[in-house]
């Protein structure tokens, strides 16, 4: 944790033309500024695994800002706007999703960027999150979340630990049969799409 490195990373972000890399630099800056480790999830994580086709609107971080850290974020150039902390020099909006990361913390990746590094949710847990979110839509539908699951699977299937994915869904089937059944159905659909793509 180093405020001076956080400042350096934010300065690098402000001069960075690439949108995805700018998000990563801000994530790395937050990691230096905050007392806990914020983990990149959502669109930026999806862009990381898919080669940036998603176009994230904000930087979703699992974590929180402690009351005594709000002043530090303001000193670093962030302003609180609704649910976001907005960094006007880099034009990046950061949203903190309170709580802890769902899934296996040992699968979190630490990617070097600029003079720091960003923590990113593991590819399998990102996929499972997209599958879980899809269950909130009518059966058989293909919302953005489902496309996100397919995108991650197609882009990075070699990196997947599919046994882990299956085990997590099985655990959900045992603990929450209704959600588990829906997750299995969405997962099977996403897998069929992946197999179709692999045969093309």
């Amino acid at each position, binding site marked *: 944790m180093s405020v001076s490195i956080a400042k350096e990373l934010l300065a690098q972000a402000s001069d960075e033309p690439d*949108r995805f890399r700018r998000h990563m630099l801000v994530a790395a800056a937050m990691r230096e500024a905050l007392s806990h480790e914020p983990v990149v999830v959502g669109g930026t994580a999806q862009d990381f*695994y*898919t*080669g*940036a*086709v*998603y*176009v*994230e*609107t*904000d930087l979703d971080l699992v974590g929180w800002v402690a009351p005594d850290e709000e002043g530090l974020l303001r000193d670093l150039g962030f302003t609180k*706007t*609704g*649910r*976001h902390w*907005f960094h006007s020099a880099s*034009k*990046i*909006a950061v949203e903190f999703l309170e709580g802890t990361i769902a899934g296996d913390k040992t699968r979190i990746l630490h990617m070097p960027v600029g003079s720091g590094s960003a923590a990113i949710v593991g590819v399998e847990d990102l996929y499972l999150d997209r599958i879980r979110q899809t269950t909130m839509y009518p059966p058989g539908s293909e919302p*953005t979340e489902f*496309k*996100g699951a*397919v*995108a991650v699977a*197609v*882009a*990075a299937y*070699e*990196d997947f630990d599919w046994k882990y994915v299956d085990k997590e869904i099985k655990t959900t089937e045992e603990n929450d049969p209704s959600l588990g059944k829906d997750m299995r159905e969405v997962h099977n659909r996403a897998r069929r*799409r992946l197999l179709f*793509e692999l045969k*093309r």
Partner: protein
Amino acid sequence: MGTTQEAISRMEAGRRLPNVSFVDRYAKAIGRSIPLVFGESRSASSQERRRRVERALGKDAFNPWDRNPAPPEVESLLADGLTRERFDSQRTAGASQR
């Protein structure tokens, strides 16, 4: 090298998966060393990942304006020239190609 021409042809064409002993004899027969690498990451490059997703879902699968961006997100998108019109025209072009 103690094998048939047919077996060598099958291996060279990728129709037979040779064992390590076969590859060793083959390397000696052609007078060249053949490096074998195990455990190396097979991860696709960023460009390859992008190509795969675009092939599977099309170039217009993800439109940030569909996600009802909040004011700071709108400012962020517009700062990069990612206007609603740009994505709408991409979607129209994608639909006409399909």
